[in-house]
């Protein structure tokens, strides 16, 4: 079984102003999509779990390419998320293959992050959009860092392809003012608070 890569797609979103006063620090939210062939397309394949191991190098490489594109150090990443779009000849479960390797790649790069990597997945056609949920890397309940990155590769996924996505952000939403747990107040033990 092999996941053959066709392309990598990167999107960078830098926000400096959103109503109100200009933000002191621009917010950079970025996502990367790896488009690969789906070796399980077109039929029911029972045994999927071993393929997760095979995807680990891709997870690590996409995480590294994303960080390079953002031109920032691992310390600057405050929120993350992941997702997958399965081409229409595949099964939703094929998107679930990304859970372990996608998280692994970002954790390898960002160090000892404690919070769960939020995720979503869907089956979709060429050009399908996917909304990658983002949350703080060390405490899932940090309210200012709940955010979303919409990603879309215009020419993917073809029916027999998979789009594996990672997203990262350098800070809270612009003008976050919803109270709740603040990044400064993280206890940092359980990944939640």
């Amino acid at each position, binding site marked *: 079984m092999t996941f053959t890569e066709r392309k990598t797609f990167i999107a960078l979103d830098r926000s400096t102003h*959103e*109503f*109100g006063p200009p933000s002191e620090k621009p917010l950079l939210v970025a996502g990367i999509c790896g488009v690969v062939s789906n070796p399980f397309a077109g*039929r*029911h394949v*029972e*045994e*999927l*779990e071993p393929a*997760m191991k095979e995807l680990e190098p891709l997870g690590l490489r996409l995480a590294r390419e994303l960080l390079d594109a953002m031109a920032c150090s691992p310390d600057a990443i405050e929120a993350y998320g992941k*997702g997958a779009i399965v081409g229409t000849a595949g*099964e*939703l*479960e094929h998107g*679930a*293959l990304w*859970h*372990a390797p996608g998280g692994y790649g970002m954790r390898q790069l960002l160090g000892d992050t404690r919070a*769960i990597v*939020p*995720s*979503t*997945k*869907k089956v*979709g056609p060429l050009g399908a*959009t*996917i*909304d*990658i*949920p983002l949350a703080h890397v060390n405490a*899932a*309940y940090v*309210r200012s860092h*709940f*955010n*979303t990155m*919409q990603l879309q590769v215009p020419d993917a996924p073809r029916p027999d392809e998979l789009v594996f996505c990672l997203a990262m952000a350098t800070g809270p*939403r*612009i*003008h*976050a*003012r*919803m*109270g*709740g747990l603040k990044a400064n107040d993280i206890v940092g033990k*359980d*990944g*939640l608070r």
Partner: protein
Amino acid sequence: MTAKIRKIITIVEDTVREMDRDVDPVTRKAAAIAIIENPCAGEFVEELEGLMRIGEELGDLLGRRAVNALGVSPKEIQSYGKAAVVGDAGELEHAAAILHPRLGKPLRAAVEKGAALVPSAKKMGAAGTPIDVPLGHKDAAYVRSHFDGMEVRIHDAPRGNEILVAVAVTDSGRPFPRVGGLTHEDAESNDGLR
């Protein structure tokens, strides 16, 4: 402040077959979606208390609607999620005001327990913009079989001065889960994680 609702939409998705195999038991998802007027559209409003109150109201309304749409008891709900799309005259933070401070509590009441974080997504968008409502197990966030999403798209909403608010629930995980990890049956569900 009470939500000025233009419409409420309910979507139910039953997956009965996948890759030529019967899904047994059938996996089921429901989303309840409200299209509301954005009281803060068009200007920078520092204090978003009104939207937080609307969030509380919608957590109850949409939570109950979605559970009812599946026709199951609250305790049979296994996963949940929430999302919002803000029309172009609004600000992303308006979605945060609805979703984060107060929507969760009544939603948890509608599904019973709900020890885990309610996964969420938000964005700015035009009428017809799709949004993926992320789904996670309601009592143990690391249950791998229940990580999912439900795409929602309303053709005529949000208008510029509106917000689309969605709540999604399921009574099941994905069809044919087989990538390992923590299962629904093995989750202890005490800490919201495992």
